[in-house]
């Protein structure tokens, strides 16, 4: 056993040494042949063209089917759209307040009132109702389909094996890439956005249905059988109600996904909803307008989230906790709504919110932003340049190319190069001496990457490095999967775009994880910080991604740095969450044992909580990467280079093949990262004996 372990260790070390030699050979022979630095075009396959040919054929033969579905779906959509835009605004508000009250009591009802008053008061009522109508049709659709798929995946192992990878793919292929085939098949119009969002919102529903049904305790099912339930009764009266809390969590997640896709689908236009308003004003750099519209989106997101979550939790609360019966409240709300409806027949202010009542301070906000950017422009530029020169550029093109009089104030001399080399080697040796050879290898790789830059690494070296990393961390299968993904990017000719995306995502995830992890540690130690951070996290997480771009865009304009910040703003959430959760939920007996052994609070944190929380923190890192990649796509709007931009451009040209190839590239990156980290986390859990 022990000797086997030793042999494995030696083999791993040998593998890394081989990678190091292999990598350095290519690194120092860069000038020898072109194919080392740049994957030759002659070696690529025209995958995008083939995909387009296939898609054209498919569209030619099956368009009628999809157009028919699209035509069918316009009916319910037009009905709801017509209803929501026709209803007088006070009527709609009354109904919403009634629902909100049942879901979450007074606080939520009050919040709903203010949120809807904002929408009507700012003059975005019709746009908001259009967005809501799209969500209102797509959510039931995806909930029904998701539930059906979930049940069949739970019923049959074969169906499950079919559905699971599909879900993985659906959740990792960038949202923009979805839109292209949908656009080609279903045509234009608001119904396309709705279909896209219904598809996008399916996976969480499927997952929670499967999970909920799997988690029904065996004894509960057996008690149902022993009561003499037939198989139908067993499902609908025992399994389904027991799984309902989990399934409702899925409904909540589906709703949020549907909303975010409805907003993103505005990019293909023609829906005249609030997402379009945000996007078009942002494109014209009218930040005041887009901020005001963005707040509407944020409010809708929070409303839908709180209401659906309220219903999900209500199911677990005792029903007697209500002082007023839901039926009574809904009755009152309905009556109020009806009386407003009748009143609106005579009072025109009620049927149509009068223009002169609208308060629209976009111009003032624009002036304020202008004042701020002029006044503090120098400081903002300094922040931006600081990050660019000392972090982003070295990562991308290496210290070797970054250090110039213009950036760092001096040129890189031979002495400096040699000192860097000596410093790196000694640091690596020191790390190896104290913490084992893996740390030495990690430091060695990091310093080499920093010197030459991720983008300038020869592709064979990069492939060898990443595949070895995946193989060492997750085993042969993960290694092969990563190899396949990288080969796909090379062969389809999107390698350099992929590396560019990898670099930006890596940089942002690194910063998110460091800052988020620190905040998470702090929040785990202080209840006050935790209380402060939680609502901010909730808000950031429910926010459709577009909206996050606006405030950053206002101050830093279009460019990679804005994208970098936007990714951090979104990806930091799971880093904080998982770290805090992991640290707080360490087995209490272990903590008590540590206290009893006389540990100081700091020793408990560093030597007990942190090591035990590592599997959970790793999952947080995983989520950070997934969130980062999701935002990377959206950030294409504010000017990035890489796969995200490629997908975005392909969407603009309705080029299915290009979008597919670039989108799959990102999906491969996401899935490889996911598999690597899950494997490491699972390994750590096993080593710690945590279930």
């Amino acid at each position: 056993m022990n000797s086997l372990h030793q042999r494995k260790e030696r083999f791993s070390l040998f593998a890394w040494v081989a990678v190091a030699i292999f990598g350095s050979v290519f690194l120092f022979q860069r000038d020898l042949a072109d194919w080392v630095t740049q994957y030759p075009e002659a070696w690529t396959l025209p995958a995008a063209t083939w995909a387009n040919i296939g898609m054209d054929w498919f569209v030619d033969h099956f368009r009628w089917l999809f157009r028919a579905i699209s035509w069918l779906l316009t009916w319910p959509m037009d009905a709801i759209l017509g209803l929501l835009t026709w209803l007088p605004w006070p009527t709609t508000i009354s109904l919403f307040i009634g629902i909100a009250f049942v879901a979450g009591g007074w606080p939520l009802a009050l919040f709903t009132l203010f949120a809807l008053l904002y929408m009507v008061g700012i003059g975005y009522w019709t746009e908001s109702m259009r967005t809501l109508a799209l969500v209102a049709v797509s959510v039931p659709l995806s909930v029904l389909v998701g539930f059906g798929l979930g049940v069949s995946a739970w019923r049959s192992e074969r169906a499950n094996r079919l559905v699971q990878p599909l879900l993985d793919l659906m959740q990792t292929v960038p949202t923009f890439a979805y839109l292209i085939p949908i656009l080609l098949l279903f045509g234009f119009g608001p119904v396309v956005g709705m279909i896209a969002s219904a598809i996008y919102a399916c996976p969480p529903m499927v997952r929670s249905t499967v999970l909920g049904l799997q988690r029904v305790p065996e004894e509960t099912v057996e008690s149902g059988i022993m009561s003499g339930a037939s198989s139908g009764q067993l499902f609908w009266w025992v399994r389904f109600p027991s799984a309902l809390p989990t399934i409702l969590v899925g409904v909540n997640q589906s709703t949020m996904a549907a909303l975010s896709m409805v907003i993103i689908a505005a990019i293909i236009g023609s829906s005249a909803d609030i997402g379009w308003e945000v996007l078009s004003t942002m494109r014209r750099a009218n930040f005041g307008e887009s901020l005001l519209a963005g707040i509407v989106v944020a409010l809708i997101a929070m409303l839908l989230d709180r209401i659906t979550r309220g219903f999900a939790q209500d199911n677990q609360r005792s029903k007697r906790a209500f002082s007023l019966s839901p039926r009574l409240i809904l009755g009152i709300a309905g009556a109020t709504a009806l009386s407003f409806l009748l009143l609106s027949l005579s009072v025109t202010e009620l049927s149509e919110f009068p223009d002169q009542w609208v308060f629209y301070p976009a111009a003032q906000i624009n002036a304020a932003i202008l004042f701020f950017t002029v006044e503090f422009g120098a400081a903002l530029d300094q922040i931006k340049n600081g990050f660019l020169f000392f972090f982003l550029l070295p990562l991308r093109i290496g210290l070797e190319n970054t250090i110039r009089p213009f950036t760092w104030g001096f040129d890189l001399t031979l002495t400096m190069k040699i000192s860097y080399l000596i410093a790196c080697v000694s640091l690596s040796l020191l790390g190896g001496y104290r913490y084992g050879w893996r740390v030495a290898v990690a430091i060695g790789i990091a310093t080499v990457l920093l010197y030459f830059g991720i983008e300038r690494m020869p592709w064979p070296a990069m492939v060898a490095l990443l595949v070895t990393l995946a193989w060492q961390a997750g085993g042969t299968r993960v290694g092969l999967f990563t190899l396949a993904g990288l080969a796909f990017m090379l062969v389809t000719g999107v390698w350099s775009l992929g590396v560019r995306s990898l670099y930006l995502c890596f940089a942002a995830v690194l910063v998110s994880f460091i800052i988020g992890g620190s905040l998470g540690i702090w929040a785990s130690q202080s209840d006050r910080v935790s209380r402060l951070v939680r609502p901010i996290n909730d808000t950031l997480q429910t926010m459709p991604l577009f909206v996050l771009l606006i405030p950053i865009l206002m101050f830093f304009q279009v460019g990679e740095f804005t994208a970098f910040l936007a990714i951090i703003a979104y990806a930091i959430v799971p880093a904080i969450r998982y770290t805090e959760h992991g640290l707080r939920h360490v087995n209490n007996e272990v903590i008590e044992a540590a206290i009893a052994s006389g540990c100081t609070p700091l020793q408990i944190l560093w030597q007990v909580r942190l090591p035990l929380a590592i599997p959970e923190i790793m999952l947080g890192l995983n989520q950070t990467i997934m969130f980062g990649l999701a935002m990377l796509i959206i950030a294409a709007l504010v000017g990035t280079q890489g796969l995200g931009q490629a997908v975005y451009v392909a969407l603009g040209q309705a080029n299915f093949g290009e979008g597919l190839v670039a989108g799959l590239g990102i999906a491969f990156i996401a899935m490889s990262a996911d598999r690597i980290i899950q494997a490491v986390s699972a390994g750590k859990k096993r080593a710690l004996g945590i279930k």
Partner: protein
Amino acid sequence: MSSDNPKLRCRGLWKVYGPNASHFFAQSHDKESRIKTIRDSSHIPAVCDVSFDVPEGEIFVIMGLSGSGKSTVIRCLSRLIEPESGTILLDGENLLEKSKDQMIEIRRRRVGMVFQHFGLLPHQTVLGNVAFPLKIQGLSISEQTNRAQQMIDLVGLNGREQSYPRELSGGQQQRVGIARSLASDPELWLLDEPFSALDPLIRRQMQDEFLRLQKLLNKTIVFITHDFLEALRLADRIAIMKDGAIVQIGTPAELVSNPANDYVAEFTRDVPKLKILTAGAVLSEVNPQKISAPLEGNPTIENTTTIDQFLPILIRSETLNVANNAGDYLGSISVLDVLKKLAEETIS
């Protein structure tokens, strides 16, 4: 108790886990060689050739440690798990030959089951949980409520009808489980470690409650436990299981005074002998020659009285007359006889 026609008869029951579980039963084998074949092909024999009878109205306790197969046996009795081989006769009908629909009907009317972790429906109130088997049978709401209310009163939960399971203590939750299992008045009552998840004090209380209910209802009972003392307290007869097979079946007194092997003896070692050994057991040690007529003036006790019960009387009069429940004189026992019996039990 007519053992020719027991309420429940289980014969040659086998349950094997593994991909080809059924194929070990194509040919006839004796038990030991079959177990060996099963183990050798890396299948798991969970229940091996288990046979027992339960007469009407008896509390039959199956006792075993975890992994002994006792829970599998009770699940085979109700066909929650399909055994590979054997017969299970309920009133002479083989349950293993019943169709799916017939089993549903049998579970609805004739068999009730209680679970270790209660198995309650989290979204239903106490009333809803107890009424659930009745609802499934399609009874009217008023019938459901009436019957469920009776059961709730029976287990002493009146006043908590509208509570949800999560609002109840473990003991109360198991009362709900018991009420539900009795709702459709089953003949056969299966209890799978019903009190194992409860605190010791509550467990004791629930055992008393269980005995009270049984006195009232007179069901035919199969009761699973891993607690030997619980088995002794509740059982009319006990079956001890180990590695999927029954090691010994007998009354509590038989097991304690006559363990079949070291494994059973290990359990009986810590048993408080005073509570198990009866006057009759002490008498069986006395030389029959010495038994003559009852001694005048000495108190008479029944042969089922345990030592701890008659000890105070014995201290006062040194010799006791023992009679059976019909009043026939069986013999006399002295302090010395009791001491001898205890010494023998403790040393062996």
